[in-house]
């Protein structure tokens, strides 16, 4: 059973959002997602300042035998990217909710947050 912290919001695309004290949100993929993908070998991320509509692709994540798009969970603007993933994409496998985070964003349409799932709902989603 994969780990599902209670304090996060989740998407159907297996991403999570965590609110920071400064009002920005950190986005990454869930423990379940990294487990399904297997060893992550490359994460392609946008640049700070890039803006995305909800559900637009903001990057890609590559495992040995699979590649997936990363989708913006909400309409947002990127304020910071996790540069550590360039050197060590395995952080996503080892610590998806911590050092394996991907982007920090400013949410530009708060209403989009309403459509996201709680840990319980996401747990049901992945069965």
């Amino acid at each position: 059973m994969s780990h599902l912290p209670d304090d996060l919001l989740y998407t159907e695309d297996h991403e999570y959002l965590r609110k920071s004290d400064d009002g920005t949100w950190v986005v990454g993929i869930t423990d379940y997602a990294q487990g399904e993908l297997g060893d992550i070998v490359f994460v392609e991320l946008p640049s700070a300042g890039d803006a995305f509509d909800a559900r637009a692709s903001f990057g890609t994540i590559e495992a040995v035998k699979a590649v997936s798009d990363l989708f913006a969970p909400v309409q947002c603007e990127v304020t910071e990217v996790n540069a550590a993933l360039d050197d060590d994409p395995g952080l996503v496998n080892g610590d998806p909710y911590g050092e394996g985070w991907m982007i920090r964003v400013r949410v530009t349409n708060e209403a989009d947050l309403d459509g996201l799932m709680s840990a319980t709902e996401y747990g049901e989603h992945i069965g």
Partner: protein
Amino acid sequence: MPLPIESEQGFTRRHIGPSDSEIREMLGVVGAGSLDELVRSTVPASILHEEDLSLPEGLSEPELIERLRELGERNTVLRSWLGMGYHATHTPGVIQRNILENPGWYTQYTPYQAEIAQGRLEALLNFQTAVIDLTGLEIANASLLDEGTAAAEAMSMAAGRVKGDRSTFFVAENSHPQTIAVVRTRAEPLGIEVVVDDAASYEPTDDLIGALVTWPATDGAIEDYRDFAERVHAVGGYVVAVADLLSLTLLTPPGEWGADICVGNSQRFGVPMGYGGPHAAFISARDEFRRQMPGRIIGVSVDVNGDPALRMALQTREQHIRREKATSNICTAQVLLAIMAGMYAVYHGPEGLKRIATRVHDLTRTLAEGLRRGGHEIVHEVWFDTLRVRPSGGSADDVIDAALEVGINLRRFDDGTIGIAFDETVTPEDVDDVLAVFAGGGESGPGAREIASALDPAELPEPFRRSTPYLEHPVFNTCHSETEMLRYIHALESRDLSLNFSMIPLGSCTMKLNATTEMVGVTWPEFGALHPFAPVDQAEGYAALIDELGEWLCEITGFEAVSMQPNSGAQGEYAGLQVIRAYHLDRGDAQRKICLIPSSAHGTNPASAVMCGMKVVIVDVDDEGSIEMEDLRAKAEAHADELAAVMLTYPSTHGVFEEGIREICDLVHARGGLVYLDGANLNAQVGVARPGDYGADVCHINLHKTFAIPHGGGGPGMGPICVNEKLAPFLPGHPVIPVGGEKAIGPVSAAPWGSASILVISWAYIALLGREGARRATEVAILNANYMARRLEEHFDVLFRGKNGRCAHEFILDLRPFRKAGITEEDVAKRLQDYGFHGPTMSWPVVGTIMVEPTESEPKAELDRFCDALISIRAEIEQIELGIADRDDNALRNAPHTAAVVTADTWDHAYSREHAAWPAAWTRAHKFWPSVGRVNNAYGDRNLVCACPPVEEYTGIA
């Protein structure tokens, strides 16, 4: 009773694995009274081809050789100094006999099972290293199909990486004509405008994707492109160089004067011209392109024990994973030929290569000096081995005709000049012959030796002279005696499992017998030594062979016309869809761009469709792997006005003869679309059903599957397309040698008949089997698969069967139930290595399964042995399921077991060494040892190294 004096050399019984009595026994197991009854209970009655194919009677092997000799004698091998990317070469005997003519090398499969493929992986790493060193760039792949398509791939790479919306690609006008044409063919459907012009005067614009220059140029000119590269970079474009590997031993590498990508043909590194191929094209690039690089890249990783191990890296770039988002559709490459070129570099080493290049250059200097003395003009100032000459007095035609009289092909330029491209086979006497030809019967002055004795050794001028060393790795500085070379080649060969050890039952890959008699003609000079652009009257034997093979392929598939150009199945798909596109455009239906593709299709299908500017719409398949008719109907209807084509594989990728195939074809035709048939599974149809009869409009044929061209460890291949009357006018043309239909699309390959020399193999295959043998092969391929499926069904779930519970020529075993025991398909495949087998196709077309295709060539004993191995592995899994074997520390999870591991002083596993290494009785008699433990895939992708690492890190050299 007459005496039995007729030949007993019939070949069919040699090609077919099971004997007649075994076939009877196996028919009993699968519950069929005869082979014919088996076929009738397997193939839908609506598509059965009831008549005999109109093919000749099979020849005996001696008769075949006789026939081939006659054809060979009708080819005239002259000295062809036509250049354009093809040059005569001395194939070192040790390489010819021990690699090109050695089934231990040429019957290998693509190195997906890295642990039993370390030999060719090392050989390919050598090739990549040589390319990286010589071109002065940072990464290289393990070969592309030919120089023309490599140039087109470079354009796509640049387009995939360039910033902003750009649509122009520049090609220098002094590039090879076929390269320009192949790039144009590729660019057009993608909406890229190709500008062909003089690089010196070209002003790059802001919408430039990149610019391609050829160095040395097609007429031999060597120009300084440093400023040009700066101008291209200044507008944000990329520079592509088409280069010649031998010249780069003397010339500044393109990576040092601003090229971002470099491509070319490695043929002159010891690979026969073969009337167009096969040879390996190379591609190298700056590191920033690592995720845009097409094709297979060999990378260094580590195995489970932490020892260095090689593997195919970054496979997520490739079509089988990325599908319609892939950067290229390339799948099969030119592995065998890349290995030969790499070995040529190993054998000669940096000094030997430089000696060869210098000698070729000096002979060219000698010729230039002699021609100048004769009053002829050498057009360019700086050149390596190719001169453009303006003859004084008589016309170019007179000179070219006179050359022909003495057995020399020279190149004719439109402006009355002549091209002469020298190579390593040229002698001083050859130079004398050219001088005499130019003298036109008059006094030709001093001979080559006299001229050369008066010339000083001189290097190329700055800035063209190379100063950077190359090939410094020990692998290129060790094996310069034939004894060492022979042992190195053998050491690598012995690490690789090939068909001469055991069956390679790869679903969808048809690893059948590549008979020796089918192979022998390839290296005869009458077939091997022809330049692809030699006048066609010098290749009458080839023409007859290609015509005959074409007729046979059309008869087998039920079509009207054929193009031999495509060099792989994926390229066949691309060519076929381009032809469909041209058909729609010709009818004014430019909007027809929708290509329906079942979700179960091979990844090359969507990748090829996108390359042809089509939009892919995925059609659902049902639980049996067959197309959902309702979904197909709905999508065809929804896109009726834009429907271009449907791409089908038959029998389906799930190994089933779908009953509704005719209905599917009719449904698409009714809405104006055409039917592309992927011929990957043609081995289940020859003589039994014909795509052209049941509704396909075009079909590619993997000659390297169904028609016995060996797989070569991942190439060569051939993917000719057969088409009906509607599409025949659009078959691809060629700018140098006229081929194709009257409304031909541009060439899809550099050479007019693709890799012509290996057409000899498929021609021989059909000629040997003949009408009856060809059908018999299909019948037994179906029998072998059904026999194995029947034997294995008590132990595994066999998925997706067609009518009467029959599979076609391959079947899928479901391994997903074993996940509960912690066992995956990969564990089973790796454990099979311990039993001496190459694993079947894994996780395709269904994740968590394996797909087994035995082919007709495997004898019953081998089928049984493979079944026994799988049944034994099933018992090992049961031990885990029952808790008797440890869930984590068991022989499957730790497989494969190397000799080093099982003989180490420490052994701390929960099972015995004996169980690890000798799991079946036959392994005692004949054991194949994987040379490394299970390879760590993630490590290699996270740390890409695609050149030979320093020796202290890597002790792969024998």
